[in-house]
């Protein structure tokens, strides 16, 4: 299947079969690629792993509870409260650690949902074609005619602000972008002979979508997942910052910035910590995605 995939839109240099037959060689190849990775990608990977570690073991790492009031309002940095306390006396460091779990978890869930929805519809549109394809494409065009944040604001005002609403709304809005990419890439694969052969062989629609087309569009989709994760992460952070995303008392970086923003006026940098945590993660993911794109295709303009 590698040869056919070379002609696909993004021109992936190699498509690894998703079967487990060549597990060992794949692992060693990955290790080799990792050794040759540029410094920025290694840095990104390490940061992402550290974030995941903190998110998973938040319960053990945090010195205090998530919404436990342990001190006075806005205490300064000290041995007892490493980064001080917030506007109602909760430990900032603990909230940062729990925030990793909540913020990253919700963003990841949203992105995953957007991908399931977007790529399924995208595959369906490209494989079935005809009026279904046209209808979905026009619908997506209209949804993309307004900026996502504005649409999200309208939907949140109607359905109210809760985490479930937030995840669903952002996932649906974001799936339009996934749909676009998936459809565009899959269109190039659908016209190939092996798909035609599978059709003539009488394979059912789910088989063609999942086993014939999907493996051949994986590399651009994986890269897109990274980029979309950053985008979703920033959108949710922005909404939380506006007070419309993740609601208190859940610890979340976006709303933590908002709640402690007044400290800026006294020259205190504490409110910048959660914002910095957001920025560091998105930069790291971008570094890794850049490297991945560079490896899997010639998308970079370096002559």
């Amino acid at each position, binding site marked *: 299947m590698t040869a056919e995939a070379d002609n696909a839109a993004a021109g992936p240099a190699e498509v690894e079969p998703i079967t487990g037959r060549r597990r060992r060689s794949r692992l060693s190849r990955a290790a080799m690629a990792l050794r040759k990775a540029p410094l920025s990608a290694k840095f990104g990977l390490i940061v992402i792993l550290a974030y995941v570690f903190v998110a998973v073991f938040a319960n053990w790492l945090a010195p205090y509870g998530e919404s436990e009031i342990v001190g006075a309002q806005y205490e300064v940095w000290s041995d007892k409260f490493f980064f001080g306390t917030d506007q109602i006396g909760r430990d900032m460091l603990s909230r940062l650690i729990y925030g990793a779990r909540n913020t990253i978890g919700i963003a990841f869930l949203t992105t995953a949902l957007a991908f399931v929805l977007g790529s399924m519809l995208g595959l369906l549109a490209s494989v079935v074609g005809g009026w279904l394809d046209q209808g979905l494409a026009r619908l997506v065009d209209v949804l993309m005619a307004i900026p996502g944040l504005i649409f999200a604001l309208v939907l949140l005002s109607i359905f109210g602000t809760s985490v479930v609403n937030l995840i669903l709304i952002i996932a649906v809005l974001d799936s339009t972008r996934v749909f676009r990419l998936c459809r565009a890439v899959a269109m190039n694969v659908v016209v190939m002979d092996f798909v035609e052969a599978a059709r003539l062989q009488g394979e059912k629609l789910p088989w063609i979508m999942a086993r014939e087309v999907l493996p051949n569009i994986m590399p651009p989709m994986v890269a897109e997942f990274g980029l979309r994760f950053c985008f979703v992460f920033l959108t949710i952070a922005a909404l939380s910052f506006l*007070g419309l995303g993740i609601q208190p008392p859940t610890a979340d970086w976006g709303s933590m910035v908002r709640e402690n923003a007044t400290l800026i006026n006294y020259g205190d940098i504490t409110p*910048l910590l959660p*914002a910095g945590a*957001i920025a560091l993660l998105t930069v790291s993911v971008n570094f890794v995605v850049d490297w991945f794109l560079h490896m899997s295709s010639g998308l970079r303009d370096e002559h």
Partner: protein
Amino acid sequence: MHPLLRTVLQRLALGLLTLWVVSLIVFAMVEMLPGNFAQAVLGQSATPEAVENFNKRAGLDRPVLERYAEWMAGAVQGDFGVTFSSLTNTGGTVRTVASVIGPRLANTLFLGCTVAVVAVPLALILGLLAALYRNSVFDRLVNLTTLTSISVPEFLVGYILMLFLAVRNPWFYSLATVDSETSFWQHIARIGLPVLTLVLVIVAHMMRMTRAAIINLLASPFVEMARLKGMPPSRVIWHHALPNAWAPIANVIALNLAYLVVGVVVVEVVFAYPGIGHLMVTAVQTRDIPVVQACAIIFALVYILLNLLADIVSIATNPRLLHPR
């Protein structure tokens, strides 16, 4: 009819159609609301009489189509109805959405135009330089800043600037509070930090896209030909490359100005600037649907217009696009 004019009219019609569908969606979403809307706005403790009264005053007891037609007819003339917030407290004065939005829209447009005036020339010059001296230290620096600035949330940029340029060194106003009394120059001085934040956020992106567009052009055969016949580099740039670069550059500019639409919402909240983005966020919190609808339509209109403008500029400067395949 001139083919260019026809294409422009076609695009305009398409844009209007999109706007109409958007208005339909924005309006219909309220109807999809589960349960009783008045109850949700007034709270669980509202008496049935209060709910009925609210429904009557907001016109929610009439059929959907009738309300949509009335809303649409009003919206075209700039009248978006009455705010819910003035309906919930019985006996208060009724405030129209237009009277709430009007001055704030002017503020936001002022902010957006100032950002555009600063950011567009800056981004074009830097992008051109990065393309000409690519793979130099300058180019690397540009790449790194772009990557960083597209991954950093706007509020972080805003607060960092506020901390260092307003609090620790009092060079700028930390809050952009203005009212109708503020004079023009005072207004400019007040919005210094919001403008700087937005410029930083969009310049990087615009610069990177300009750079890509120009690099693409410089690799094309006609530029190579011009170079091979010994033409001075400045003439190659100004007479061969740039005339062909206008279409992609127009696209870049429109795309990023459209991105401003999203950027202003967050930045206005950070600096407490009384603009339409700030208004929309407040309206969403208080679930003042007419205001949210009006803001969404205005944002969509600006967004669609900017994209339309980019389309028209690229068609006007590249006649090949008049004849789609």
